[in-house]
């Protein structure tokens, strides 16, 4: 096997380096700002370093922690509901062939592609009459629109490679349907539930416009708080909240690194984040 000429190899390495720098670059000023005090033009680096923004973010008066718990709670509820509803639907799509399957798949795929704002204005009108606007439960419900399709699609992929013969054997040996599910089905599909659940969590975690519209500005999740600080020019606090906000994604990435080696169809799940 011949080696490419030096020029081509250098171009390759150089573009690799440019790509690496570009991928990290936007996060750098955010991280620096979170430790900076009065970092004005034209200083390349802050003259003074401080933990003030972090102290503020973790103080009980700033509301950042309240916002953090609220965002976690909403994402957990949306994820749990997506698992409960998405696993059965994924089973139907992954294990059976039936008439109208194409339509069902399209119905489930549609919310992945159609932007949230296109449906949220209509939902807002209905939620007003139901008393669900400006409430946490209204926000959780509306987060199901982007999270449920991902959960369903991930589970459909899992069930497509699932052998139901084990269930029949368990049943023929006298196990009840509930026991069969608990001891046979659940362990087999657990990896899918974990990965799909983490995706669903992250998708809910990053919602902005659905929360803003349905929560009416009263349900202040982290992205809303981040936006408010960013537009009010408090760059240091924005930096600290931004760092806190990207942490779960990084943790989830480290947890799922093996499943995400690029071959998994589930990687598309991050597209909506």
């Amino acid at each position: 096997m011949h080696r490419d000429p030096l020029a081509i190899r250098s171009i390759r390495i150089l573009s690799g380096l440019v790509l690496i720098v570009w991928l990290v670059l936007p996060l750098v000023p955010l991280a620096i700002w979170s430790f900076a005090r009065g970092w004005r033009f034209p200083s390349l680096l802050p003259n003074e370093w401080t933990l003030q923004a972090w102290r503020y973010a973790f103080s009980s008066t700033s509301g950042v922690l309240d916002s953090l718990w609220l965002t976690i709670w909403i994402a957990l509820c949306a994820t749990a509901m997506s698992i409960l509803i998405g696993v059965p639907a994924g089973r139907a799509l992954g294990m059976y062939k039936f008439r109208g399957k194409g339509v069902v798949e399209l119905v489930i795929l549609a919310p992945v592609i159609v932007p949230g704002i296109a449906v949220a204005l209509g939902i807002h009108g209905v939620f007003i009459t139901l008393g669900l606007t400006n409430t946490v439960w209204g926000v959780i419900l509306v987060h199901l629109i982007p999270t449920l399709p991902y959960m369903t699609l991930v589970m459909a992929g899992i069930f497509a490679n699932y052998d139901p013969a084990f269930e029949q054997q368990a049943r023929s040996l006298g196990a009840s349907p509930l026991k069969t599910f608990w001891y046979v089905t659940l362990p087999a599909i657990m990896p899918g539930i974990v990965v799909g659940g983490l995706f669903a969590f992250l998708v809910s975690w990053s919602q902005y416009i659905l929360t803003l519209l349905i929560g009416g500005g009263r349900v202040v999740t982290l992205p809303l708080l981040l936006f408010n600080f960013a537009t009010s020019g408090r760059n240091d606090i924005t930096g600290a909240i931004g760092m806190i906000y990207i942490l779960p994604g990084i943790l989830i990435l480290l947890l799922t690194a093996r499943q995400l080696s690029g071959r998994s169809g589930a990687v598309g799940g991050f597209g909506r984040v």
Partner: protein
Amino acid sequence: MSDRIKIILLLAPAMAVIGLLFFGGLLVGLMRSLNYMPVIGLTEPNLDAYVAVFSSREFLRSFLLTFHISFTSTVISAAIAIAAALLLRRTFVGRGVINFLFQLNLTVPHIVGAIGILYLFSQSGSFARLGYAAGLIERPSDFPALVFDPYAIGIILQYVWKEVPFIGVIVLANMQAIGQDYESVARSLGASKWQSFRHVLLPLIFPGVLSASVMVFAFTFGAYEIPALLGASHPQALPVLAYKAYTNVDLAARPQAMAMAIIIAVLSAIMIVAYTRATRARIRG
């Protein structure tokens, strides 16, 4: 229990949630955009809101701007993503790092990327400071307007930052599934490197590129927080304009907001048709 009943029971909850929330929301939006609200006695649907929207200069400029943002971001992202995937399928120093950063970037919410772009490219941002240090500019206003600008450069930069890894990961998975055998055959038959890429690899990965690009286009067309943070105050991206009209104190603007939402939905419906065509083409091979 017959399979038929089983399938219906398994699908019912998901269908109910998506049907009620998603399609219900769409339907209500459509009705209100047509000024059709039987509850408050409006029983004669009309196209007033659409006429008002389409005859407004502000809307047309906003529509063109949004189309420009989506189209430009998608094309640039897809091109860089293909190049990056070509780079990533080889073994070289730094491949692992880029792979990791690609996935890291996928988990970072758009709004964080948007703030990062703001701090990098604003007139008092990192690049302006570098320009000052290099003696290229004397004050912030000398730095070209790359955010809050009429060409939406900052918005496009943010989308390219976020979507190159998204398309790249999908294209890379495609390339790895295809393998290099076809290209080797083309090369051994005398094709140049460019020819084997253009006529062998590109047609093979194209359906994947297309379906990923469709998702990116639809997303960028309907995303709110990125243009709200990085966009100029005039013209505004369509989702920002729709939200502004919806939250306007003048309730008469609401049907127009609904009409804009429906226009975004129709455009993404066209994208779904393209998407399913692309996936079918991929299955056919």
